[in-house]
């Protein structure tokens, strides 16, 4: 599975994409955000590193009894004075393990979140400075003239070279004891933090550390949601597969509708036949309302009637017995008795008939057959079943 790290370019609107396979860097590219979908392989892991100056990180602890929503409401109420924007315009991310809350403008997070949702990957949007936590709580890295600083309280900041000096002056005034691990050879940083530990780790090493963690515990702004595009990308279907799926889906919808229309059509046919039947009995017949009651009414007006049904079971037995070998057959439909007269029927053929009689469940009433070594003659009476 591939892993991607996405950083914002500080010089323009583009993004930097780092592509890894099994922790090995495959490619780095600087692309427009519109090209991200082409650059990301579906079903991979995507880490979007949000510039640390775009978010604030504060300490916060969710009580066990609190739901996420209740905690969010309480936290925002308690920290309202620290927020520049309106409370409702902030996206909220919480890490239970680190007891940290990250807040960023929804206007910033939403487009990124929408874009990552389309990637159909396991995505995260985490503040960039959390990359440094694998080195030290207080650390600073330079990458492409861009400086990211992390602090032991979980907060972080980033700036470019032009603003570095002024930022460091403010920082020194506010946190005079701040001594970060330096992952940079920048002279300004080295002069400012002369007593700091220098580290040779690169951005790729920091990516590697994050990749080695199965489930990073950092606050994550990403919110996945159901979208057709992401499903298509996740399935990673070819054109043929899409075509087959579309046909399958169309059939899934069309077949029940066809079935419905067929059932309605059969029902109409039965109703028409009922009408026709009544009309054939009485041409002046007008309307069928309750067919059973109307038929009962007609039958009540008739003298005693005898059922004239035919039992086709008897014919099924005749078919099975192969009449070519039977001289005379007689069926009494009232008693359901069948009489078979055989004349010099070869033994082999009789064995077949005997087996058929057994298998069909017919009962032998009388057996007047004369069997010789080679043939069978005589009369056998059987009772067949109605079922």
């Amino acid at each position, binding site marked *: 599975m591939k892993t991607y790290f996405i950083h914002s370019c500080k010089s323009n609107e583009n993004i930097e994409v780092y592509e890894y396979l099994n922790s090995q860097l495959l490619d780095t590219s600087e692309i427009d955000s519109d090209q991200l979908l082409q650059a990301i392989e579906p079903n991979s892991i995507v880490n979007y590193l949000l510039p640390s100056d775009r978010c604030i990180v504060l300490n916060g602890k969710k009580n066990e009894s609190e739901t996420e929503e209740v905690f969010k409401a309480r936290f925002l109420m308690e920290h309202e004075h620290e927020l520049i924007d309106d409370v409702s315009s902030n996206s909220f991310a919480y890490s239970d393990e680190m007891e940290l809350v990250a807040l960023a403008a929804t206007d910033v997070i939403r487009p990124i979140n929408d874009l990552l949702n389309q990637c159909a990957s396991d995505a995260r949007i985490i503040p960039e400075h959390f990359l440094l936590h694998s080195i030290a709580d207080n650390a600073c890295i330079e990458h492409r003239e861009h400086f990211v600083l992390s602090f032991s309280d979980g907060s972080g900041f980033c700036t470019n070279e032009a603003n570095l000096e002024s930022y460091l002056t403010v920082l020194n005034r506010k946190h005079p004891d701040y001594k970060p691990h330096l992952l940079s050879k920048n002279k300004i940083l080295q002069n400012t933090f002369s007593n700091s530990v220098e580290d040779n780790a690169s951005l790729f090493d920091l990516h590697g550390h994050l990749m080695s963690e199965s489930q990073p515990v950092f606050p994550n702004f990403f919110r996945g*949601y*159901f*979208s*057709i595009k992401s*499903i298509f990308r996740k399935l990673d279907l070819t054109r043929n597969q899409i075509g087959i799926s579309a046909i399958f889906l169309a059939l899934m*919808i069309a077949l*029940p*509708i066809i*079935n*419905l229309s067929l*059932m*309605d059509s*059969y*029902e109409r046919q*039965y*109703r028409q*036949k*009922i009408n026709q*039947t*009544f009309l*054939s*009995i009485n041409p002046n017949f007008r309307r069928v309302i309750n*067919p*059973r009651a109307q*038929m*009962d009414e*007609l*039958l009540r007006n*008739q*003298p005693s*009637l*005898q*059922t*004239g*049904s*035919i039992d*086709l079971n*008897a*014919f099924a037995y*005749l*078919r099975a017995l192969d*009449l*070519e070998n*039977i*001289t*005379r*057959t*007689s*069926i*009494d*439909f*009232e008693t359901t008795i069948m009489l078979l007269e055989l004349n010099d029927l070869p033994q082999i053929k009789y064995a077949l008939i005997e087996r058929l009689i057994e298998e069909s469940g017919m009962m032998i009433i009388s057996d007047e057959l004369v069997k010789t070594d080679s043939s069978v003659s005589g009369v056998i009476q059987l009772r067949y079943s109605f079922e």
Partner: protein
Amino acid sequence: MASILLLFFISVSHWIISQTTSSKSKLLSAKTDYEYVYEGALLILGRTSEDLLQNNPNEVFDSIRSLSSEQSILLMDIRLNDEGMVIDLGIESLDQIIKFIESMHSSFAFNLIELSLISSDEQKTVTLIYSSN
């Protein structure tokens, strides 16, 4: 968009299931009604045919002759005796006689009480006896 599609899919599925259940029960009801009416109609037809056979047998005989002719069955004899109406036919296969009996049933609804079939190398002869009330 996806949620709307999902909602649409669930609604369509629900509609199809409820419509299928309703149509199936309507179809079953229509089928059983038809079978009931058909059986009743056959009883009435049988009574009418019996009356016609008693009062004007030649008309019935002519209809049976034309039925056998339509089905290319050789009608050898047709007569009334104490048992009822007796029809002798020359057939080539069992299917022919089954079809003829079914046609007789739907046309006259007579009550078939006995069938005799004599097979020889040359031909098969069938005698049908219909009861007369």
